[in-house]
């Protein structure tokens, strides 16, 4: 049976660079809305390209645990294996960086690709060992994690605020994740899917740069070896530029 592994999501903000709506910038003009006009240079026009770099935080979560299973000494009907102990594994939160490139399909919809890099830890908790009931949690491994995905962005222009300069959006997409366990050649790969959203805040006279906040929940589809989750995530703040 195929199961979805739920990883987390949450929100956070991020402190980011310059090029934003911050201090002292002249009051921006309302962004053009509606159908694209000939010679349209607005950031929301079809075929506009948006580049962004982001920094954020991956939020850890429980991964699939594992039990040290013994074969019971039974005959006849099989019984569940006997666990000698069970290890629970949690991926810790960690800083993440990455970049995105997107292109507007229409004023409402854009297609966006992203890559992200982070280095979380795997923490182990031992349970179920009657001979060792209180084993403190410890670091099991450190991992390097890369992910890449493509998402559809839906701009909710009707919910824009701040004189039309802050535009909420929804996002959903899918991609690929690779984790490399430090000290080993072991790689853990899998498909990931994300859903979430955020807000883009356009700045400048024509709104060709700005700041955005994303919050995404990532789901990982277990691979054929039934290795479960090992993916998680995330929140990030970005600066972006529109061409």
């Amino acid at each position, binding site marked *: 049976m195929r199961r979805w592994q739920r990883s987390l999501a949450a929100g956070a903000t991020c402190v980011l660079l310059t090029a934003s709506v911050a201090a002292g910038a002249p009051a921006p003009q309302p962004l053009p809305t509606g159908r694209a006009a000939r010679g349209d240079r607005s950031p929301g026009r079809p075929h506009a390209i948006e580049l962004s770099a982001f920094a954020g935080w991956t939020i850890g979560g429980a991964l699939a645990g594992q039990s040290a299973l013994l074969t019971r000494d039974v005959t006849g009907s099989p019984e569940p294996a006997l666990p000698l102990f069970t290890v629970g594994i949690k991926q810790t939160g960690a800083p993440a960086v990455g970049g995105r490139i997107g292109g507007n399909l229409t004023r409402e919809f854009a297609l966006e690709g992203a890559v992200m890099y982070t280095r979380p830890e795997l923490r182990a908790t031992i349970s179920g060992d009657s*001979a060792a009931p209180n084993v403190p949690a410890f670091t099991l491994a450190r991992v390097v994690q890369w992910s890449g995905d493509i998402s559809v962005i839906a701009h909710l222009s009707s919910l824009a605020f701040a004189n039309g300069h802050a535009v909420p959006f929804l996002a959903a997409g899918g991609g690929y994740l690779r984790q490399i366990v430090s000290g080993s050649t072991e790689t853990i790969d899998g498909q990931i899917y994300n859903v979430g959203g955020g807000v883009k805040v356009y700045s400048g006279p024509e709104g060709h740069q700005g700041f955005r906040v994303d919050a995404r929940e990532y789901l990982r589809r277990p691979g054929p070896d039934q290795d479960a989750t090992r993916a998680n995530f995330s929140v990030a703040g970005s600066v972006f530029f529109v061409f």
Partner: protein
Amino acid sequence: MTHRVRPRVAGFVCLLLLIGMARSSDAYLKTSIEDDAGTLVIGTWDSPPTYYVTAQGVPGVSVAALVSAVQGGFDAWTSVASANISATYGGLTNAFPDQVDHQNVIGFADLSGMPGFEDTLGFTDYLLATDSTSPHFFETDIVLNANFPWSTDPAGVPGRYDLQSIATHEIGHFMGLGHSAIGLVQTRADGSLDVVGKRTVMFPIAFTPGNVSDRVLTPDDVAGISDLYPASTFRTETGSISGTVTENGQGVFGAQIVAMNTRTGALISNFSIDQQGSYVIAGLSPGPYIVRVESLDQLDPSSFFDPAGPAVDTDFGVTYFSGPVVVPAGGNVPNINVTVTAQ
């Protein structure tokens, strides 16, 4: 049948050849001895052995079924992809299985007249030639106790021991493996031990009659046979961990160390095998591991180590290594050192 049965290793002596109990030198307990110079010598076959099966069945087991069960046991070990060992069936023989005749003989024998063997399902004798630069098995025999009820039914028969399961265990000894301790036991009122669960064919106590689980090797068994007879890729595709087990600054002899792959759950174990408490566990697939150390306090240490050797320390509690253990392919993770405390 109310009592439990303990297959065990025994030995016999020859002037030119030496016998030994299971000791460990590298990874996994192996059949070994100390030679005259005090060097630990591992017993392996230097060429594929030929074995013969006695032409004597027992109630419930025909000669043909005996041959089939023994061949099934050999197949389990020789089909391990990461091991390079084979064996040849030489045919039937009327030779008694437990005699020095330069033939490797496997068969039933009436052990009722042998003191101390009443509870023994089977045992393996071996002669180890140490008079060459490459110590090797010279002759190995397996005796199966004809006084127990046996079955070769693949589904198992209640009240009857599965011959192929017991043969598979003894053939592990035949190949050079000692015992492994991945299992839980409970003590009965009469002092005998019941297996609650185990995860190695080479556990020194058999499953109950009717259980056929020991026909199939576990990762622990696979690692052991592969370490003895490594296929060309074994050392490059798997890794190892090493370290010490100490108590109050002193090395612990005979501690059981189990490594669990956190991705697959595979369990592979070994023991600390010297006065410094040193151990090595080989044959580990790359990835993160949990390392658990336990004493042999529930089992008979003489099932694992030569009673004439160092005393086995059984007075400490279960302890985990509390740090990252990530095994690389083809490499060793050193200094996985565990400090245990007295119970």
